[in-house]
């Protein structure tokens, strides 16, 4: 066992690979009643570099969410930075529902960002927050502003501060180069954490967002599961069995790894305790059992099996190994994962011979096809449970697409080079800011009504 599970520690310097081509977001479907927002360039108090990009990033975040219409700066009639500088008539004239204004200040150690979200119609301040971040954290601070605005206006937690991990394959068929990348949710700040000439797949996050597990064929062109720490780049080989070493999935507490091995002759699901290295087999069937994922409480495993003749989704309770079939519609349902609240699952579903991403409502058993693209695979749900990202094909190239669980918003994230595939939405935000409590009483705008939205 020790020998089989022998760990190879490689201090890889891969974390430092130069930034690769970024993903570009193209909204293909937005909501019909998009909220009209104006993000006014923030005022800068201090010396040194002017951080003009904040408003641009917030603007772009909101626009790309498909739920907002963001007013371009050149169409603004005035550029207020404080509440008392706002001429509401200007904004009503432009049909703006909400206004984001703010200012930046150098504190010596970092940057203090203060911003307000204003309801133009009610002339009220919906949010007024101050955060402090480092000089290099301008993007993180911008995404924080976007998250706050998004949550205030939609009631859904923003996902602009999260990240997306994905795999790219570039080069000709016989000389492909595989890369594992992590980028901001808006496609910027791409970091390659691993690259190989052999296939690389099934990358998945640990629940704390500090590690990733993946399958790589780098050693003798054979599959093995690796876990890599993002902070240090340290990589550890976890499995080295004959046959498949596939589909790793961290348990919600991060202590166990569900995986697929065929060492006993057939693809079966196992659970590996990452501390004790104890391995236990949980499925026993001559069919294919694969693609395990966990329920939020860690008490059950959802998996794909063709034990009924065709691939369908099953759930196994770990307490007594009781198995229940979850999907009955269609002859190909695979790679399911649950929404954070467990109310439904997303999966790959074949309809009329075409592979789409579908949502299955587990309470009512209703299946909804979410995508119109074909060859769709690898759905991954955002931590806020409202969007999912997946891999598809566009003009003979592998690209990422995203769709809201209600189907109302759709966008693509094409890359300038190669095939992009297997997106995995990070479980955590890249950087969390704690707002500073300054003036507990938010300033009230001229005129004013007390009620907030939501």
């Amino acid at each position, binding site marked *: 066992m020790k020998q089989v599970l022998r760990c190879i520690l490689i201090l890889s310097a891969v974390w430092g690979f130069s930034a690769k081509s970024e993903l570009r977001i193209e909204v293909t479907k937005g909501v019909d009643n998009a909220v009209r927002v104006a993000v006014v360039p923030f005022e800068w108090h201090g010396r040194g570099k002017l951080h003009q990009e904040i408003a641009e990033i917030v603007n772009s975040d909101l626009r790309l969410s498909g739920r907002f219409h963001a007013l371009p700066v050149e169409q603004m009639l005035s550029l207020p930075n404080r509440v008392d500088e706002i001429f509401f008539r200007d904004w009503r004239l432009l049909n703006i529902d909400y206004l984001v204004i703010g200012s930046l200040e150098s504190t010596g150690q970092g940057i203090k960002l203060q911003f307000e979200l204003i309801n133009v119609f009610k002339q009220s301040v919906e949010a007024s927050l101050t955060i402090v971040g480092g000089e290099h954290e301008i993007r993180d601070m911008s995404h924080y502003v976007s998250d706050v605005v998004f949550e205030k206006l939609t009631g859904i937690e923003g996902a602009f501060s999260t990240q997306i991990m994905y795999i790219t394959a570039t080069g000709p068929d016989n000389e492909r180069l595989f890369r594992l990348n992590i980028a901001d949710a808006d496609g910027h700040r791409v970091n390659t954490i691993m690259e190989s000439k052999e*296939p690389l797949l099934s990358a998945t996050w640990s629940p704390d967002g500090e590690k990733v597990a993946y399958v790589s064929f780098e050693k003798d062109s054979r*599959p093995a599961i690796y876990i890599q720490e993002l902070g240090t780049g340290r990589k550890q080989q976890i499995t080295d069995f004959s046959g498949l070493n596939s*589909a790793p999935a961290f348990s919600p507490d991060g202590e166990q790894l569900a995986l697929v091995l065929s060492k006993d002759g057939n693809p079966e699901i196992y659970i590996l305790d990452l501390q004790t290295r104890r391995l236990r087999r949980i499925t026993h069937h001559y069919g294919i059992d*694969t693609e395990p994922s966990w329920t939020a409480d860690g008490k059950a495993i959802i998996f794909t099996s063709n034990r009924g003749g065709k691939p369908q989704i099953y759930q196994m309770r770990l307490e007594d190994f009781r198995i229940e079939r979850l999907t009955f519609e269609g002859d190909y349902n695979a790679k399911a994962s649950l929404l954070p609240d467990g109310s439904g699952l997303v999966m790959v579903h074949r309809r009329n011979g075409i592979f789409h991403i579908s949502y299955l409502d587990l309470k009512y058993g209703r299946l909804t096809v979410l995508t119109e693209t074909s060859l769709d695979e*690898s759905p991954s749900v955002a931590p806020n449970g409202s969007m999912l990202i997946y891999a598809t094909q566009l003009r003979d190239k592998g690209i990422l697409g995203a769709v809201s669980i209600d189907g109302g918003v759709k966008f693509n994230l094409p890359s300038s080079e190669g095939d992009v595939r297997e997106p995995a939405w990070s479980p955590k935000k890249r950087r969390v800011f704690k707002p500073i409590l300054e003036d507990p009483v938010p300033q009230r705008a001229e005129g004013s009504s007390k009620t907030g939205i939501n």
Partner: protein
Amino acid sequence: MGKTNIRGLFVVGLTAILLAGCASNEPDNGPGMDPGTQAPSGAAEPVEKPKPTPEPVKPMVDRGKIVVPLDELGASETLTGIFHFDFDQAIVKRAGHAELNKHAQVLSTNSRLRVRLEGHADERGTREYNLALGERRANAIRAYLVAQGVSRSQVEVISYGEEKPVNSGHSESSWAQNRRVEVVYR
């Protein structure tokens, strides 16, 4: 037709073994023979049956493919190393049986040969399921070979799922080419 092929191959295989045996003895006689003197004797009587062949005639591995000698005159055949499958299926097609029989023959009569069966799937469906499917296909080919007398220890199975397509197109014909097992000799 399959039967005669098998028998024919059996003869070829036997010949190969016999010839291989001869070849291994050759170094003993080799130094004593002078090619210079032998040539004229051959020229004097063209119809004479050939002397022991100078080249060892046994299956040869060439870039993963196996080249099987057909006769002692040097004719040979490179065996097809690719077997195709239907969508979401791991059943060895009848069309491939004859060729697989040849592989089985070569492997069972040359126990030092090793093959790697590389299973593949088309791009449709999920990657992990396709890895499992690729393995099933390679296992099916292995089971066929083992049933024909090949030792399991000669055969290694690996699946690449949909990660290594031979045709990167997205049409039915590209997919058909990609659903395959490649027999790679090492």
